[in-house]
């Protein structure tokens, strides 16, 4: 590092900030396109069965309606399942919109109305008359636990391996342990609900060419999907998503509005926009229901002796969506006897899709509440209990971690929060009419890195240009990547441009799993290094170059110049290099990938610790999260400002998960009853109080070139359990179902 390399680690404000506060930032449904047609989707009002007839005649003849697509008149598309399977498709048979008259879930898209304006399309959709033949269905996980089975295996299994094999003899150890706890947790459905509605604007470029503005977390994923499904050359499909109004996992897979909009544009040879309504946002992705049974035991020294965790999740009738729910305790607490299970129940619902901290936020809530209960039985402080059972090595793989600063998270978090002021007796702390509770919990998430390609070039103006197809869904990706590139080249932020959100740029996986900073970031480092090499070679080859007597490693880049480290007078500016190159840009494209061989000897994970204070009204039992601290160990933090926002956002999600959000399923009707933002509660400003974030120092020279691990999910892993544990501490009551409603606390009051 030279003294110019100082962008990384700085709390830089988002580079796209101005575009976002002035309304300039254009999202998928905002693009101004000439002669635009508007679509509106008709969704199934039954849960399972068949369409007997679909009469579009009235709708079709309504003034302004251009076309109506149903399973009866839709254009041909690829029939092979494989062609519809996107990069994130779980094992099974992918859902194909308008394939036939079969209904697999409530809200399934069954027709698309295309009209000259939105209002006409919406009105005409009400004129489509559908007759159904209904069949019996099951949608409630709790009523179908008996049907749980092993998940199917497939490509996705590589990222989401099945639970680890058992160790020792769990039943015996549990039987013989002096301290034990058995718990059962129920988690209902949640919906991602980004504030931006899913939308696609397709520009028909003629000749089977499409330019698509789409709401997605994966431009390349959706490009390849559209090309495969409609038999286009992938080079003729360009998917752009420079601004994405939140997605939280819902944009990991191509959604039906993309399919329908592209189909209509190709068939009508027109530009088409399709924006879903809020209620339709409940018809294509959700966090699955889960049922978990845990049994943890400890000896009298407070060491964990046995861990058993069985989870049952929900999936659709057509795909096996897998989450990692029940494996996490095995990576946090060393125990000699373990047993883990994960099963699925197929139900008449659309496939779940990963939702922020998928599996982890569900499983760790159960694990960390069970640990709290065990600590209470042992009469040990919950934090002390974690410290006693601290895993120096990964108990699962029995390998060392590339880095693990969880202990620092515990210590720094507790200090900042004031954990030592906690009186261990439940219900013992109060303030006026309010009971006070303190709760804590640990968090763990994987540290993923995908292969990514980056093009790096010096433009004819001597500026650095970096490009990659990734999106920035609000994570700060644009800013962070610019910082990384600037430092690699010793340039100021103003002299670097990052081009992204475009499938035409070099390959990126979808933006998920907290992996993009490591994936694209590392590729930037690799490409920048290669570009520097290339520049050095070019300069050395120039006639009379003063550089050719120096070794490559004596040459550095800083302040827009290439120079000799110890003889800065020997220098040439980037602009001069380009002039010498006859004004042509110099570029290189390189791949960044995880060092699998080296990493095979290690385990890798991010960690966190959450501390929460709740205030609960003595009589009314209303619950308020008044304070919270989350301490995070996630390797190097490239931008503390945007990273803090990521964690704060996850803390608001934690509050939401523990106390607010739930999709209410009526299993008699087989449908979600609150598909709107008035009844699907998320925290409002008045709910969010004193939240704080601590990033602990975690140097990791093994994990990747940057030492980064990602911060998208880790903030949502620990805090829901910390809230639940704080509620116990305040009231003496354990609640095993999220979200926790205050009436649960009214049921039997403690004296």
């Amino acid at each position, binding site marked *: 590092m030279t003294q110019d390399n100082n962008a990384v680690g700085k709390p830089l404000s988002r580079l796209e900030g101005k575009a976002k506060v*002035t*309304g300039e930032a254009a999202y998928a449904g905002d693009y101004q396109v000439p002669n635009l047609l508007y679509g509106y989707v008709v969704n199934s009002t039954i849960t399972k069965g068949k369409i007997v007839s679909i009469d579009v005649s009235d709708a079709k003849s309504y003034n302004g309606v251009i076309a109506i697509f149903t399973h009866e008149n839709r254009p041909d598309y690829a029939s092979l399942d494989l062609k519809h399977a996107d990069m994130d498709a779980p094992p099974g048979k992918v859902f194909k919109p308008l394939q036939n008259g079969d209904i697999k879930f409530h809200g399934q898209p069954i027709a698309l109305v295309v009209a000259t304006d939105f209002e006409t399309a919406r009105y005409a959709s009400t004129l489509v008359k559908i007759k159904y033949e209904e069949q019996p269905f099951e949608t409630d996980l709790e009523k179908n636990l008996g049907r749980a089975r092993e998940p199917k295996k497939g490509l996705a299994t590589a990222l989401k391996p099945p639970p680890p094999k058992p160790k020792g003899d769990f039943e015996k150890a549990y039987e013989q342990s002096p301290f034990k706890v058995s718990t059962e947790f129920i988690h209902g459905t949640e919906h991602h609900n980004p*504030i931006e509605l899913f939308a696609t604007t397709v520009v028909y470029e003629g000749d089977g060419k499409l330019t698509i503005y789409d709401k997605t977390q994966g431009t390349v994923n959706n490009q390849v999907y559209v090309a495969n499904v409609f038999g286009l050359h992938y080079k003729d499909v360009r998917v752009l998503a420079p601004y994405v*109004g939140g997605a939280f996992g819902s944009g990991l897979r191509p959604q039906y509005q993309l399919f329908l909009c592209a189909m209509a544009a190709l068939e009508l040879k027109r530009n088409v926009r399709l924006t879903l309504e809020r209620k339709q946002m409940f018809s294509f992705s959700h966090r699955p229901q889960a049922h978990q049974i845990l049994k943890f035991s400890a000896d009298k020294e407070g060491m964990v002796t046995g861990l058993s965790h069985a989870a049952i999740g929900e999936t659709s009738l057509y795909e096996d969506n897998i989450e990692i729910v029940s494996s996490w305790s095995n990576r946090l607490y060393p125990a000699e006897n373990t047993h883990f299970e994960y099963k699925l129940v197929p139900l008449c619902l659309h496939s779940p899709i990963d939702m922020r901290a998928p599996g982890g936020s569900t499983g760790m809530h159960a694990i960390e509440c069970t640990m709290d209960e065990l600590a209470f039985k042992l009469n040990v402080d919950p934090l002390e209990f974690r410290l006693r059972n601290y895993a120096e090595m990964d108990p699962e793989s029995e390998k060392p971690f590339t880095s693990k600063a969880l202990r620092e998270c515990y210590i720094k978090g507790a200090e900042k929060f004031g954990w030592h002021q906690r009186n261990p007796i439940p219900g013992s702390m109060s303030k006026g009419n309010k009971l006070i509770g303190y709760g804590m919990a640990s968090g763990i998430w994987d540290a993923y890195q995908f292969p990514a390609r980056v093009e790096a070039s010096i433009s004819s103006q001597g500026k650095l240009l970096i490009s990659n197809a990734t999106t920035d869904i609000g994570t700060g990706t644009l800013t962070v990547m610019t910082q990384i590139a600037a430092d690699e080249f010793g340039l100021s932020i103003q002299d670097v441009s990052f081009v992204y959100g475009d499938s035409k740029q070099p390959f990126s996986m979808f933006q998920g799993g907290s992996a993009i900073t490591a994936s694209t970031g590392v590729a930037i480092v690799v490409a920048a290094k290669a570009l520097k090499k290339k520049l050095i070679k070019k300069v050395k080859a120039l006639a009379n170059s003063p550089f050719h007597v120096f070794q490559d490693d004596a040459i550095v880049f800083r302040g827009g110049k290439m120079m000799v480290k110890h003889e800065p007078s020997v220098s040439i500016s980037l602009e001069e290099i380009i002039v010498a190159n006859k004004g042509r840009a110099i570029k290189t494209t390189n791949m960044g990938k995880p060092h699998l061989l080296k990493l095979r000897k290690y385990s890798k994970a991010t960690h966190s610790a959450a501390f929460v204070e709740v205030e609960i009204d003595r009589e009314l039992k209303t619950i308020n999260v008044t304070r919270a601290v989350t301490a995070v160990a996630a390797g190097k933090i490239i931008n503390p400002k945007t990273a803090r926002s990521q964690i704060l956002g996850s803390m608001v999600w934690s509050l939401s998960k523990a106390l607010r959000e739930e999709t209410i399923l009526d299993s008699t009707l087989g449908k979600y009853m609150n598909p709107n933002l008035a009844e699907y509660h998320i925290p409002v*400003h008045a709910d969010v109080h004193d939240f704080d974030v601590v990033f602990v120092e975690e140097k990791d020279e093994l994990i990747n070139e940057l030492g980064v691990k990602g911060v998208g999910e880790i903030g949502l892993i620990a805090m829901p359990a910390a809230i639940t544990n704080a509620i116990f501490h305040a009231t003496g009551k354990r609640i095993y179902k999220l979200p926790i409603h205050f009436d649960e606390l009214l049921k039997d009051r403690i004296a």
Partner: protein
Amino acid sequence: MPRIQLNVNKRMYELEISPWVSLLDALRDRLNLTGTKKGCDHGQCGACTILCDGKRILSCMTLAIMKNGAEVVTIEGVSEGQKLHPLQQAFIDHDAFQCGYCTPGQICSAIGMLAEGKAKTREEVKDLMSGNLCRCGANIGIIDAIMEIHGGLSHE
């Protein structure tokens, strides 16, 4: 079709518009002012908040024809040319957004809220801003940004 006149961001527009078009869709689809966002179309999220005759309103809950002759300010009209409104700058400084989708509504709502002059404390600001949802959870940054301006006002 009814004809209406709208003054939007100090510019006069004449519109021929069906009665069923919301002010939000009129702005977005007819006037190409897409800075104002649709998050629910049902008055539940606040993303569509604009200023109409100086007051914050939900443009999705308003039919365009009801506002004939009104003076509308949308997010595109908040700054003075290239010069950002102090609240816009405060939003950038406090990282008061992530995806940015709720941001136009938050900013317009906050300008309206500050003009109402009812909120005196941080808690009151939070209450009176609670009609504007942020799914990214940028709540703390948003309120910090507003408080910076609120403080500035009350000290004048």
